């Protein structure tokens, strides 16, 4: 085991132990890596699944309190395990499969969506040492795998053989592809100052007090942060950019024909996605796990949940954009702004603002 001094409450011992587990139980070399990553994957997956359930409950509570009602109150203190019960209920429900569906596509769409949502967490630094694999292309990897969601939504829209679902799938494809660009460019503004794509490097270069966070330190950091948040809301398909499932127009959009656990998979994936984009915002702009006194993972979670809270407030306040306005906003406003931001930041860096 590791001999370094660990701050009280740090969890990276668990990850270190999992890293060393295959070796210590004497597995042959050929399967060591497989077992190690499987163990890490299961750990992260189960924690995140529970966390997604918590987020669903939290969103319901936040929405309820903005609207001056209680929200779930029945099971447990303020209904804290309501979503667990909901998930169990959805598990038991009949899986309604319409006759005219595209069988293969219809089946795999929720699976792809669910898996793609969790893939990003391979490189997510939850705390000091709390990372499954510190890839040197971390952020690029995240950008790549989160785009898988659009394929899943398109598959769901197509496979359902329903006009509403198809419209939802098409809208989702157009939207996610468009907003990918401002999102990546906003992140690039930061990355050119870090000089590395590794998530750990990004976090470590922000160590220290909060003025070392990139949102404050990098020129045009706040603008990049705002454009990132806007694009992230669109990526996570939430109001005011929730047109793929726009309830008042397309009823439920791409997941209109899904029921039971398949629906639950879409639903959980949506919340995991929301957590992903918030976690990236916390990591890249808000200093990640850096913070005094408290354990690093607490800081990470605190910052992420703050961003999540912001997303929730936005969701429950604003009306929804129309589909053409959404695209116009992306291409005519966000893309130019983010590119200008990137160029200015690059010029400043070249001129030696950053030593």
């Amino acid at each position: 085991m590791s001999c370094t001094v660990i701050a009280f409450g740090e969890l990276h011992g668990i990850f270190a132990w999992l890293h060393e587990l295959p070796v210590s139980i004497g597995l042959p070399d050929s399967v060591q890596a497989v077992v190690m990553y499987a163990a890490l994957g299961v750990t992260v997956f189960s924690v995140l699944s529970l966390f997604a359930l918590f987020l669903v409950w939290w969103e319901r509570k936040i929405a309820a309190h903005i609207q001056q009602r209680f929200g779930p109150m029945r099971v447990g203190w303020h209904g804290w395990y309501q979503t667990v019960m909901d998930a169990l209920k959805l598990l038991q429900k009949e899986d309604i499969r319409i006759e005219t569906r595209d069988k293969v596509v219809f089946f795999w769409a929720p699976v792809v969506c669910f898996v793609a949502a969790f893939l990003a967490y391979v490189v997510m630094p939850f705390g000091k040492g709390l990372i499954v694999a510190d890839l040197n292309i971390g952020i690029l990897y995240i950008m790549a795998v989160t785009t898988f969601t659009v394929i899943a939504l398109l598959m769901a829209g197509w496979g359902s053989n329903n006009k509403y679902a198809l419209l939802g799938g098409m809208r989702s494809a157009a939207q996610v592809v468009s907003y990918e660009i401002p999102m990546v460019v906003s992140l690039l503004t930061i990355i050119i100052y870090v000089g590395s794509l590794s998530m750990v490097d990004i976090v470590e270069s922000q160590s220290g007090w909060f003025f070392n966070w990139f949102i404050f330190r990098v020129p045009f950091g706040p603008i990049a942060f705002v454009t990132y948040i806007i694009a992230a809301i669109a990526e996570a398909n939430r109001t005011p950019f929730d047109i793929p499932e726009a309830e008042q127009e397309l009823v439920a959009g791409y997941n209109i024909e899904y029921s039971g656990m398949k629906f639950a998979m879409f639903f959980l994936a949506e919340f995991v996605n929301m957590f992903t984009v918030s976690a990236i915002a916390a990591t890249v702009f808000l200093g990640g796990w850096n913070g005094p006194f408290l354990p690093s993972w607490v800081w990470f979670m605190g910052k992420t949940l703050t961003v999540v809270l912001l997303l929730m407030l936005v969701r429950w306040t604003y009306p929804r954009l129309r589909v053409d306005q959404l695209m116009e906003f992306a291409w005519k406003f966000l893309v130019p702004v983010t590119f200008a931001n990137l160029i200015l930041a690059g010029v400043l860096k070249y001129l030696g603002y950053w030593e």
Partner: protein
Amino acid sequence: MGLIDHIRNLLKGLGIAGKHLGRHAITIQYPEERMEMPERSRGIVVLLSDKETGELNCTACELCMRACPTAAIKIVTHRDENKKKHLDVFEVDNGLCCFCGLCEEACNFSALKMATKYEFSTLGADELVWDVNKLQEVGRDVDYVDTRKKKKPKPEPKADAKPTAPKPEKTDAKPKPEQPATVSEPVNPAGSSTEEKVNEEPLPEEQERKEEKKEGGPTDGSV
């Protein structure tokens, strides 16, 4: 409006939503907490009992049945040797009741009231038909102002009640048991209970109606 204005207005909306986040909920948790119903609230129809004797106030005058627009009240009476009317059947079909309050206003004997109670969900539609015992039992603890004249149940209009009572004697030229209370529903609301009742006596009604038709429209107060 410029960009700055847009941002300011967006933030203003966010501020209003955030402001409410800190406030306490205005809803209540229903089975544990209940709203206090106003005294005039129109809930379930109940039959009232005399405060001293505990007997029903109802005099079987059938005014409420006549006032009811959905024929939810069914009354069957008979006369004894003293020509005094007695109640055989008094049923309220809560499934048909539309809670308009016309029966309560029609009643001149403080016999019937729409109580402030509102919970009567059941598992079947037929359980919603309440007979006289159930109605009386539910109405035991209902407070009311007795506007009757003691010992003399002669119809007297209430102070501000709308209808002046028609003479109950006149309305019963035809003895009721032969013509059981008509439970009618003009357009079928697809309820099984309605259909059953309709089947009881479709023919005489049908004929009566046809006759009226020939005479050129229904005649008023023919009974």
